[in-house]
């Protein structure tokens, strides 16, 4: 029993199933992070005072993280492009780089968090830290999720390239869409938390 349009696009919608599926999922993620941004806005507007992000947070480290994540988005899309050009080795290299960038992001984040914790600054400190840790924490969890998916497609999942190359390429594209979204969220998080 075959489910139609898992690989080929359905003519009238122009999409294959997982492409539509991932965009729908991303729409729900927009609402998730959007709700958190909405909470942040409400709490900050209602607050009598709110510190400037750069006073309390490490802007250079976050800038580095921004570059890392944007770089990983490039390597991610390049890994997909490599598959489109039927170059599996290139794909592996780019995907590997993407995963490394992901780990790099987490390591830097780890330094940031560690520095805060060692100064006794936890989410319970005040609303600023509460929102900082919660928003970056949830984002970080999404990064971890993305790394796991990417690791799977770099490793055991890549076996599908030999048997169903088109389906595998679709899967990598879909994983890429998720990864780009994670980058997109950070693009907003960075200025909002660190620079305002």
């Amino acid at each position, binding site marked *: 029993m075959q489910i139609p349009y898992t690989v080929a696009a359905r003519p009238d919608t122009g999409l294959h199933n997982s492409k539509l599926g991932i965009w*729908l999922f991303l729409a729900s993620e927009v609402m998730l992070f959007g*709700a958190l941004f909405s909470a942040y806005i409400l709490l900050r507007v209602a607050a009598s005072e709110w510190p400037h992000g750069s006073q309390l947070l490490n802007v250079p480290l976050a800038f580095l993280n921004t*570059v890392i994540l944007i770089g990983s988005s490039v390597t991610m899309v390049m890994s997909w492009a490599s598959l489109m050009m039927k170059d599996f080795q290139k794909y592996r290299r780019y995907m590997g780089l993407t995963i490394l960038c992901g780990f790099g992001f987490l390591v830097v984040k780890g330094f940031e968090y560690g520095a805060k914790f060692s100064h006794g600054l936890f989410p319970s400190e005040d609303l600023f830290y509460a929102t900082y840790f919660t928003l970056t924490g949830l984002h970080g969890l999404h990064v971890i999720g993305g790394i796991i998916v990417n690791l799977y497609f770099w490793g055991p999942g890549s076996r599908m390239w030999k048997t169903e190359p088109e389906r595998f390429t679709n899967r990598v594209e879909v994983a890429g869409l998720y990864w780009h979204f994670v980058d997109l969220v950070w693009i907003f998080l960075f200025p909002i938390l660190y620079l305002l």
Partner: protein
Amino acid sequence: MEHTSAEDIKKHVRTYILVFVALLVLTIVTVGVSYLHLSIVPAVILALLIASIKGALVASYFMHLISEKKLVYFTLILTVVFLITLLSLPLLGFHDTIQ
């Protein structure tokens, strides 16, 4: 998928590199602007504007949204409408109280 030929992909690769550079530049601009120490309202507007441009670049080129199908656009537009609702109406509620 729309792009199937290798030449098409090579053109796309050029685009990806260009977008990457643009994103780096805009990130530097974002940080640079913060050093201007503008007052909160223009600071927020500027920061969100730059972030939106960066986001649009990622969405349009890395996520291929610029050549995506109507159905996907429609879903995203609907989402954005509801998001704006969620962002703005509670704010209105916080300002408009019986006082």
